[in-house]
């Protein structure tokens, strides 16, 4: 894995966390219960913390000079972000948010567990080891809600089944290997995505069965996020997130 591949692998980790954390922050003050205001902001907080670590590490690998986590978060354009399409999907209703979180948490947990164990990049291992503890809690939270909503009322069942059907097309992208994933696999930094998919399937199927939900068929999968091809909603999200650093270039906050 060369420097540029490592940098991009770290950017992907940081971008997944940043964009999902930003989406979750939109819930603050609007959740179905006070307990969920706390839970969703807490998960957002963890994810933005992971972002800071991954993006700072990625920023140290730019050949033209070190970039800070803030520069990477606030001064890149949409085409430069490499997050999964899944994490940028709009919040929708609480069920949409939970399904998005659940599908991602299961993947993020397995990925972080691998990175925490590898020795190719000890700094990334350190970040991932801390993240594993956080994501375990996130996965526990989203799994419990999957079961409550799936096996709750007829309305919640049909709503969350629909969310699952709608978001399923974004799950394929998590397991596609490109040159960065392959070099990451060779060096040991990144997991084997084919193997990881099998473990993900087990986790997902276990919870879906407890939730009395039907796993959607693997149909056509939407991809593009890893190449910087995002959804239309993504631009508005970045505009909101980046407005202050863009309006006041060079200012310190």
């Amino acid at each position, binding site marked *: 894995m060369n420097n540029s591949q490592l940098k991009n692998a770290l950017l992907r980790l940081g971008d997944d966390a940043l964009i999902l954390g930003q989406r979750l922050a939109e819930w603050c003050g609007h959740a179905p219960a006070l307990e969920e205001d706390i839970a969703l*902001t807490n998960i957002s907080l963890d994810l933005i913390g992971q972002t800071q670590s991954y993006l700072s590490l990625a920023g140290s690998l730019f050949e033209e000079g070190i970039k800070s986590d803030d520069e990477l978060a606030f001064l890149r354009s949409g085409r430069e972000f490499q997050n999964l399409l899944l994490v940028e999907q709009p919040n929708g209703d609480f069920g949409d948010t939970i399904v998005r979180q659940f599908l991602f948490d299961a993947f993020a947990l397995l990925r972080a567990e691998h990175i925490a164990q590898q020795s190719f990049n000890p700094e990334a291992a350190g970040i991932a080891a801390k993240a594993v503890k956080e994501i375990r809690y996130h996965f526990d939270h989203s799994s419990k809600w999957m079961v409550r909503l799936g096996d709750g009322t007829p309305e919640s069942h049909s709503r969350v089944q629909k969310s699952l059907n709608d978001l399923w097309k974004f799950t394929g992208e998590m397991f596609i290997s490109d040159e960065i994933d392959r070099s990451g696999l060779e060096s040991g930094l990144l997991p084997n995505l084919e193997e990881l998919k099998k473990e993900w399937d087990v986790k997902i199927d276990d919870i879906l069965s407890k939730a009395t939900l039907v796993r959607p068929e693997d149909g056509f999968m939407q991809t593009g996020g890893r190449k910087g091809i995002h959804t239309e909603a993504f631009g508005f999200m970045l505009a909101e997130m980046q407005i202050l650093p863009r309006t006041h270039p060079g200012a310190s906050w």
Partner: protein
Amino acid sequence: MNATQEKLREEFDAYVAKDKKIEPKDWMPDGYRKTLIRQISQHAHSEVVGMLPEGNWITRAPSLQRKVILLAKVQDEAGHGLYLYSAAETLGVDRADLIDDLLSGKAKYSSIFNYPSLTWADMGAIGWLVDGSAIMNQVPLCRCSYGPYARAMTRVCREESFHQRQGYSIMMELMKGTKDQIDMAQDALNRWWWPSLMMFGPSDKNSTHSSQNMKWNIKRFSNDELRQRMVDMTVPQAELIGLKIPDPDLKWNEDTGHYDFGEIDWVEFNNVLSGNGPCNNERLEARNKAHDDGAWVREAALAYAEKKKTKE
């Protein structure tokens, strides 16, 4: 009041006068219970509504570190809401009913949150001034005669002081910055100064609840005393970073050892209190929408819990 009740009342008054704590199962006068339910639930509602003006800027926080801090702060506020509702529940009311009163507009919450948060500097001003006034009001409540409230407030105050410091730190950073940032900070102070002083309530001569609450050790200092402390504490902090307090009458008074300051605009105070603030409707609508949109989720959680209980 019959003889037994009168005796209980006398014992209660004597007990409270000795600065002892009343616990949920102790006998207490109806008026004491009602006052506490009103005050604690209003306080809880204020925490919950207070999430909105700041939540408004989380997605636009200008750095990752500021985003993390603001998330932590607003999360604390939700937590304060939770344990204040729990403290109120020890007095025999139900959180769901209290929330219904908030949503219907029957219950009050702190008027300060009916002002809009317009720029990033408002996050500084709210933390520094609004949380500053809140702490000034709340520190004496840590010694309130009602045990569960006093204990909740001890925890709240510890977190509020972190909130105030983060607000001041935002202002400090802005004042070290560009001209736009300095203007932004001064503008925020101009807009939040007077509303923050209004947070202490009407002046002592017009305060309706004060004297009985003082006797019951629910209130320890008068509105005007606390307001004066806030002014005395804040003016030097503003001067230190080059901000100007928007009050032409503000002046240090050698004789009293306090700052003299101008008269609050009580017309505005009463207007915001009675529902005519810039955001009264928006705040209640946002809370109602969250509640309505979340109804199916809460129902699902209840239904699932029931099913699980039946299975066991």
